[in-house]
C-alpha cells in the first residue's frame, strides 16, 4: 500500500521523461542507447524490489495484528533466519546481474567501434563553452562557442578542459557526463544516430551561473556538415563601414573575436558566424535580434554574475551591434 502510491506515480511520470530536453532514458546511439537500456533495466529491478518488499511488509503488518495475546514468549527463529538467507541470496543474484550488466555496458561504450574521424576541444569556463575545431593544418583551426556541430553517425572525440573551475560536459541524449577539470584533459566521445538538435548542460556546480551554462549540439547530415564546415572556415562577411561593426570594435572587441577583422578578444566567446547559433549566452535565450538587444542591455539581470559587463550603450548603438551580429552567417 505504501509503495503502491509512489510507484504508480513513478510509472505515470516516467512516461513524461522522454519529452524533456535533458531526459536520457530515451537516448539512442552507441553511447546513450546502452546506458538508457541499462537505466530502464535497473529501474525495473528497483521498482520490482520496492513492490516485493512493500507487499512483504504489508502482509507482515497484516499478519502481526491478529494476535490478542501480546505476552513475550520464547521464539524459535530458525525458519525466519532461513528466509532471510533466501531473501539475501535472491538479492545477491540481482546485484551480481546488475554489476555484470554495468561492466558489459562500460566495455561497450568506452571506445567507439571505429576510429574517431573528428576531434573537438571543448573548454568550459564561467559560464560558457569554447569549442575548437582542428583542421588539417593550423590555419584551418577555428573556434566557436556554446554550440557543437557534428555530422550524424560519426564518432566524435571530445577533449575536455577547463579554464577556471570544474565543469562537467553533458549531453544527456547522447551520453553521460565527463568532468572538465583544470590541469587535466579528459577525453570522451559521442555519436549521434539521428539528425537534430540536442541540449547540453553543465553537470557540476560551478558557481553563480551554473544554472545557465548550457549548450547545443546540432547534428547534421554529412553533406550539410561539410557545407557548414566550409562556411565556418571563411572569415566573417563584414563591411568595414557598417555602423554596428564600428560600435562593436569600440565596445565589444576587447573580449570577443570575429575572425577576419581586427576584433581579437579572447575573454568572451568567439562571435564569428554568430548568426548560425541556436542560442545566446550559453543556452539562456533563443538567438533572435530582440533577445540579443535585451541581453546586451540587461546582461546582469538575465545572468547575474556573468563576466560580460553592462555597457549602457545608446539604444541605437545596441540595435546596430545586434543587427551586425545577426548578419554574421
Amino acid at each position, binding site marked *: 500500500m505504501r509503495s503502491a502510491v509512489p510507484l504508480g506515480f513513478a510509472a505515470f*511520470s516516467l512516461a513524461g521523461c522522454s519529452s524533456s530536453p535533458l531526459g536520457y532514458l530515451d537516448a539512442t546511439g552507441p553511447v546513450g542507447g546502452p546506458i538508457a537500456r541499462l537505466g530502464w533495466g535497473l529501474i525495473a529491478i528497483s521498482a520490482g524490489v520496492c513492490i516485493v518488499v512493500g507487499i512483504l511488509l504489508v502482509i507482515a*503488518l497484516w499478519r502481526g495484528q491478529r494476535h490478542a495475546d*501480546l505476552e513475550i514468549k520464547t*521464539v524459535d527463529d530458525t525458519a525466519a533466519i532461513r528466509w532471510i538467507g533466501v531473501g539475501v541470496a535472491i*538479492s545477491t543474484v540481482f546485484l551480481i546481474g546488475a554489476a555484470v550488466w554495468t561492466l558489459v555496458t562500460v566495455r561497450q561504450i568506452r571506445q567507439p567501434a571505429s576510429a574517431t574521424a573528428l576531434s573537438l576541444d571543448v573548454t568550459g569556463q564561467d559560464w560558457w563553452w569554447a569549442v575548437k575545431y582542428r583542421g588539417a593544418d593550423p590555419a584551418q583551426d577555428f573556434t566557436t562557442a556554446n554550440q557543437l556541430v557534428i555530422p550524424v553517425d560519426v564518432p566524435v572525440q571530445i577533449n575536455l578542459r577547463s579554464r577556471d573551475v570544474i565543469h562537467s560536459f553533458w549531453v544527456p541524449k547522447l551520453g553521460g557526463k565527463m568532468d572538465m577539470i583544470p590541469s587535466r584533459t579528459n577525453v570522451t566521445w559521442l555519436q549521434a544516430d539521428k539528425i537534430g538538435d540536442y541540449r547540453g548542460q553543465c553537470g*557540476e556546480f560551478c*558557481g553563480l551561473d551554473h544554472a545557465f551554462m548550457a549548450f547545443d549540439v546540432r547534428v547534421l547530415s554529412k553533406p550539410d556538415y561539410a557545407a557548414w564546415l566550409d562556411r565556418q572556415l571563411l572569415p566573417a562577411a563584414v563591411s568595414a563601414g557598417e555602423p554596428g561593426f564600428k560600435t562593436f570594435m569600440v565596445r565589444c572587441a576587447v573580449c570577443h573575436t570575429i575572425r577576419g577583422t581586427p576584433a581579437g578578444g579572447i575573454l568572451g566567446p568567439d562571435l564569428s558566424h554568430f548568426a548560425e547559433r541556436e542560442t545566446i549566452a550559453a543556452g539562456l535565450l533563443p538567438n533572435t535580434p530582440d533577445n540579443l538587444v535585451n541581453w546586451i542591455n540587461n546582461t546582469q539581470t538575465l545572468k547575474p554574475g556573468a563576466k560580460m559587463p553592462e555597457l549602457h550603450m545608446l539604444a541605437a548603438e545596441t540595435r546596430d551591434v545586434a543587427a551586425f551580429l545577426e548578419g554574421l552567417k
Partner: protein
Amino acid sequence: MTIGVDQRAAADTRQTLLDIWETEPGLYGWLATVDHKTIGIRYLCTAFFFLIIGGVEALVMRVQLAQPDLKVLSPDAYNQLFSMHGTTMMFLYALPMLSGFSNYLWPLMLGSRDMAFPRLNALSYWVFLFAGIFLYVSFPLGQAPNAGWFSYVPNASLAYDPGINMDVFALGLIFLGISTVVGSANFIVTLLRCRAPGMSVNRLPILVWGTLTASVANLLAVPAVSLACAMLWLDRRYGTHFFEVTGGGQPLLWQHLFWVFGHPWVYALVLPAMGIVSDALPVFCRRTLVGYTLVAISTVSTMVLGFGVWVHHMFATGLPVMSLSFFSAASFVIAIPSAIAMFAWIATIWTGKLQVTTPFLFFAGFIMLFVIGGVSGFMTASVALDWQLTDTYFIVAHLHYVLLGINVFPVIGGLHFWFPKMSGRILDDRLGKWTFWTMFVGFNAAFFPMHITGLMGLPRRIYTYPAAMGVGWLNLVSTIGAFVFAVGVLLFLINVAKSLRAGQAAGNNPWDAPTLEWATTSPPPVYNFATIPQVASRYPLWEDRLNEGEDRSVIGEAARDGMVLDRDKETIGVTPLDAEPNVVLKMPGDSVLPFLLSVGMLVLSFGLLLQAIWLVAAAAVCEFVLLALWLAPMPHDAVEKVEIYD
C-alpha cells in the same frame, strides 16, 4: 521486618549516591555538569535546533524552485542556502543527533554510571555547539559558505570565492572535527570498559553496535576532511598549492580526501539510526530481533566495505575505467549487508505480535524508505548509469531518502520511544500518529518526484530552471510536500511541549521493553543505577518470559544485589570482551574546564579566521594551561574492595 530494614538501607544508599553524583544547581552547575544524560539531551536539543534551521533553509529554496524562472532568491543567496542546508544537516544535525541518543542511552543500556570520559563528553558537546555557531557566523553578513557541502575546489578556492565564506567552512569543519573525534574515542573506550558485569559483546544492543561502528569509522575518517580543509585554508590564505593548479596542485586531491571521509561519514549517519530501529522495533512486535548476530555483523561489515567505495562519488572525473569498474562492483556488494538488516526487520514484524504505536509506525515506515533509498543507491552504484544520474535531482532524491528515511524517521521514532525515559512522560499517541502520517506523506510528496525530475535531467544545485524542462508541476508537488513535512515536524514539537506539561506518567518501563535502560526510573537518577546491574542475557527484563537458560540478571537497589560503589564517584570497569569486572573507575566531578577549553577553541578559530596571530597565540597558551589543569594527576587509593557477584 527484614524488608523494612532493606528498604531503609536502599534509601540510604540512594541518598549517598545522590550526594556524590548530583550536579550543583545554578549557572556553575549548568556549565560544569558532566552527566551523560544532561549532555545527551543537550545534544538532542541542539541538533534538533539545527534541523529546524536547515529545514527552514530548505523551505526557502523550495519556494524559489516551486515554479520555473522564479526570482525569489538571487543565485548567490541560493548557493549560500543550499550550502548551509547541506552543511547543517550533514554535520550539525545528523551525527550530533545520533550522538545525543548514544550519549543519553549508552551508560543506561550498558548498565554503567557514565561514559568512560565524562569531561571529554562535555567537551565534545561544547565544541559541537561552538563549531555550529562558528559555521553560522558569516551567515548574517551574507558571506556564508557557498560552494556546497562538499565544496569542490577550485570553485571553493580564493580566486573564485574571494570572501570569507569558505574560510568559515574550512575552519568550522576542522573545529567540529575535534568534537566528532573526541566523542568517538569516548564511545569506543566506553564500550570497551564501562559496562555492567556480564554485558559481554554478544549481549550489546544493536544501537551500541551501530554507534561503536560509526565511532571507529569517524576516528579513521574525520582526519581526512580535517586535513583537506586545512589544505584549502592554506591554499586560500597562505598561497600553498595543494589544489591550486598553477603550482602543480590537483583539484582531484580534494575530492579523494573529501570522499574518503564522506562516504564512511554517510554510513556513520545511518548505522546508529538503524540500530535504533533494530532495538526498538522488536519491542512493538513483542519479540526479540530476528537474527541479532546477522544484524550486528552486517552493521560492522557495511562500514568495512564503506571505506572502499568512495570513488563512486567520482565516477565522472575521468579516472581509469578499470578502477571505476572495481569501485562500481564494490558499491553493489555493499547492498548485501543492508539487505540482511532489512529482511531481519521484516521477519521480526512478520513473526511478531504487533502493537501499532507511534514509534512502531515510524520504524515500519522507515523500512519502506530504506528500501527506496537503497534501490536508488543501487542504481547510482552502476558506473555507466551514474554518468547520467550524477549531479541530477535523482541524487538529491536518493540522498534525502537515505538521510531522512534512514536518519530522521528512526530519530523521530526513537524520540517517541525514549521520550518517556528522558522526561518521565509519554508523548501523546494520537498526535504522534498524526505526526507520522503528515511527515510520511509530506516526505514522499517532496522527494519522490525528485527521482523523476532527475531522470528528466534536471541538474542539482541550479537556482532556477526553464519552463521548457517540463518539470514545473513536479517541483510544485515537491514544494507542497516539503511544507507538509514541515507541518509534521511542527506537530512533533507541539506534542513535546504538550506532553512535557501534561503527558501521561511513564513509569519505569511503559513499553515493557527488555533492555537495561528501562530498569531504572524515568527519568533516571543521576547515578543511573543504585547498584551496578549484573547481566545474564541479551534481554535482561524479559528473561523470565523468554526462559532461555538458568541465569538471571540482577538489577536491584540493595547492597546485596551487587556493587554499590558509594565510597566516591565511581563505576566499575570490565574486560573488553567478556565484561568481567577488573577495575574500579574513579569518575571525575563536574568541571568548567571543558566549557573553558571549548571557548578557547572558539577564540582560536576566530583568530585563524581573522589571521590574528596574537589572538591565536594567546588562545593556544590558554588552551595549554587548561589542558594541564585538566590532566593533572590526582592521588587516589591503589585498590578498593568490591563485592563480586558470582
